[in-house]
């Protein structure tokens, strides 16, 4: 029975190629790495350029239906129209002129669509996900167990102490701006972590610190942080609850308010740590004008340049988070940072090995990474 079937199919294929008799090679294949909803067709047509190419499809090899008309210069197409995984599909192409006369056609070819269990092109991605996740998890867990993880001190943090010292000497206040975003922004959180460190120094030296904020949620958290800092240094009575205050939610309204404080109070140092937008340059300009030491930190790529140009020290992008992790001493933050460092080291090694191999004419690494 099976033999008869094979014979029939062969006969059919042979037969069909006789009446279509064409020398335009057409191949149909399951589209790789998908859910079985597409079939790739490719062909070579040499001859007078047609007006259009008609693609016809059938599920039984007989009743062909026109499924699409495509541009004449194309040599491949992925058919994804109502293809079901596991089904057999038959195709033929017709090359037609402007009056829809058939100039040439191809043989009938068939292909079976199949769904794959793994997208093999994404192997490098999977490898990287596994390495990075294990590194990050490993370091978080070991930090939780109390293992000491070394993080280099971020240079800008030294200046905090100096700035507080200078402020005390001059009898001038300090100003901390946590950006204009709310608590859901990790930059704001990182900034507040640094505020906690700063507030402790301020409490120790007995200087004054102003923290104007633009979001009510940030207000309560910042107040809590500064209060706790005074408590930790053992001077809860010295905490002035009005030193952390809300100005307004509006971007420029807030800037105008902070500007006013800088002009009136002439702080010895200003700290801008958090998420900043256009207000960065207005703040930095006013601070510069007043002669304050300015320390900034943000991960907003478009604002970093202004801070670098107008401030004395700037924590750039990831440095802000690293500084926060360094000061907070939380296993989650430290472990995560450490895990990312493993990623960076891996990337550097891959780049160097890749380049050396590339110079030797071996492209395995680049080919592997390209995911094509």
């Amino acid at each position, binding site marked *: 029975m099976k033999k008869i079937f094979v014979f029939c199919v062969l006969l059919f294929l042979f037969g069909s190629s006789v009446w279509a008799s064409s020398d335009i090679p057409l191949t149909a294949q399951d589209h790789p790495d998908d859910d079985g909803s597409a079939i790739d067709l490719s062909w070579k047509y040499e001859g007078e350029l047609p007006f259009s190419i008609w693609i016809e499809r059938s599920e039984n090899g007989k009743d062909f239906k026109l499924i699409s008309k495509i541009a004449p210069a194309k040599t491949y197409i992925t058919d994804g129209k109502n293809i079901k995984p596991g089904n057999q599909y038959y195709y033929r192409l017709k090359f037609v002129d402007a009056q829809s006369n058939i100039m040439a056609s191809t043989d009938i070819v068939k292909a079976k669509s199949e769904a794959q269990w793994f997208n093999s092109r*994404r192997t*490098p*991605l999977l490898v*990287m*996900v596994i390495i*990075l996740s294990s590194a990050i998890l490993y370091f978080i867990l070991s930090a939780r167990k109390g293992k000491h993880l*070394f*993080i*280099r001190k*971020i*240079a800008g943090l030294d200046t905090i102490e100096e700035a507080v010292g200078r402020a005390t000497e001059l009898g001038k206040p300090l100003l901390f701006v946590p950006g204009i975003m709310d608590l859901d922004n990790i930059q704001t959180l990182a900034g507040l972590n640094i505020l906690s460190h700063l507030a402790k120094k301020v409490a120790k030296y007995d200087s004054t610190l102003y923290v104007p904020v633009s979001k009510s949620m940030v207000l309560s958290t910042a107040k809590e942080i500064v209060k706790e800092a005074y408590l930790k240094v053992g001077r809860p009575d010295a905490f002035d609850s009005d030193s952390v205050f809300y100005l307004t939610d*509006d971007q*420029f*309204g807030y800037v*105008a308010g902070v500007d006013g404080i800088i002009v009136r109070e002439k702080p010895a140092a200003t700290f801008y740590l958090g998420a900043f937008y256009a207000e960065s340059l207005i703040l930095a300009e006013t601070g510069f004008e007043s002669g304050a030491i300015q320390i900034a930190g943000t991960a907003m*790529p*478009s604002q*970093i*340049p*202004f801070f*670098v*140009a107008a401030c004395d020290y700037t924590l*750039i*992008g*990831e*440095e802000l988070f*690293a500084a926060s992790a360094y000061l907070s001493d939380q296993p989650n933050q430290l472990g995560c*940072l*450490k895990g990312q*460092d493993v*990623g*960076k*080291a891996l*990337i*550097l090694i*891959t*780049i*160097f090995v*890749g*380049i050396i191999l*590339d*110079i030797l004419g071996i492209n395995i*690494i*680049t080919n592997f*990474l*390209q*995911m094509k």
Partner: protein
Amino acid sequence: MALTMERLGVWIGVALTFAIYSFLYKDNPVYKIAEQIFVGISAGYWFIYTIFNILKPNLYTPLTSDFGNNTLLVLPAILGIFMLCRLVPKINWVSRYAISVVVGTTAGLALIRTLQSDVITQMSETIMNPFSGPNTAVILGKWILIIGTTTGIIYFFFSKKHTGAFGATAKVGVVFLMISFGAAFGYTVMARISLLIGRLQYLLGEWLGIIQP
């Protein structure tokens, strides 16, 4: 009438423009009023477009016209209402269910997509033969790309102190970072000036008619 209203509209636009620009002289009530109109209209616009462009076609219409085939959509509708419960302090914890769907989905997709586009592809783009190229400029450029990218990554490497050769490498990284920031600075200036040009084209063109809009 429509034409008069259009002309009136242009004048309204000019008045609001100067209301905002009055901030340059100093903060004042006129500016504050204009600012609040801006905030209010913006919020109203988002509100209406979210209803007309998302909730109506993707939720309301499928549910009302063909409930049988779209029964599952009841779930996101409930989660959406949970989200709005954030406004009511007593039950605002139910909004966490909705937030966790949004945050989880975004985190999962961002993890994979960022890793491929911003990490792996950028890494493989840095792997190249720095001795081959059609001219000196390209070869020099390749060396710059390799050295700049790797030293830049070293600058952001936090597990080792920046001393000795490692510190020197990180310093080289800073040089490249600063040149980058310089270019970013230049482009930001360009963007801000363009917005002012747009405004002046409006004032000089549509309003005063001195230049062709």
